């Protein structure tokens, strides 16, 4: 499974450029498939969009944390939504992808299709 990342900008319907923050991610392979985690602080279940098209997995996280209505003294965080595109291993069964959001961490489980899993064949007498 690979990740492809081009310029993280998308044109909205009014053809304005919208830029995003690329979330930090981690991918692990398990027996059943892959587990992908992405850090998206300020994003909850309602702000999450996960789409699969042509072997490309797109994650968009829209922040719902309210802006603090006060004078900014010092700021390091970027008030942008998150977006990242991953190329999927063709072995992944895209219909069975599951997403979970917990304290700003998105966890996607990407199971491999049954046909590609190693199968033990029982020998009959």
């Amino acid at each position: 499974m690979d990740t492809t990342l081009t310029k993280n900008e998308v044109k909205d319907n009014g053809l304005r450029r919208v830029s995003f923050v690329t979330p930090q991610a981690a991918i692990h392979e398990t027996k059943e498939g892959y587990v992908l985690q992405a850090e998206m602080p300020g994003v909850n279940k309602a702000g999450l969009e996960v789409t699969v098209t042509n072997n490309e997995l797109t994650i968009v996280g829209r922040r719902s944390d309210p802006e603090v209505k006060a004078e900014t003294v010092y700021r390091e965080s970027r008030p942008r939504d998150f977006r990242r595109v991953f190329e999927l291993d063709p072995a992944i069964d895209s219909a069975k992808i599951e997403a979970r959001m917990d304290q700003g961490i998105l966890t996607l489980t990407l199971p491999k299709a049954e046909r590609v899993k190693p199968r033990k064949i029982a020998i009959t007498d």
Partner: protein
Amino acid sequence: MSLIRYYSPELSTWSPFDRLASLRDEFNRLFESGAESSAREHGLLAAWAPALDLYQDRDHVFVKVELPGLKKEDIEITVHDGALSVSGERKEEQENKEGDSFRSERVFGRFHRSVALPAAVDAGKVTASYKDGILTVTLPKAEEAKPKQIEISAS
């Protein structure tokens, strides 16, 4: 640990040290050697400095820290000597340690951020909330730190 000094926003809105740290990370990524990436994996070189924002209005100082993936119990907040410290630990889930890691940009382990507060606060009334991976600390300003209008008495 990264200690951030308070800079007047007119002079500087960012800490040069943090920018250097992230630049260093970028270089490390470019010239990643096997030894270094394995050291980072084991938390030896992992320095995690979560993004911190500081705001104030007439009555409060607000501090927002991006801390995705922690447990409320693992965050420690202290106010001491005009500075707020946030520290804690992000633990890697056991299930993720098994199997092959394809790509790991996430950092685990301890972190510590301190920030000098722009005004005196009432330490007894500080409140904090943790939601969607964002910690928000609300610090009411001490009475003597609030701006007061002085009336001119008629003579």
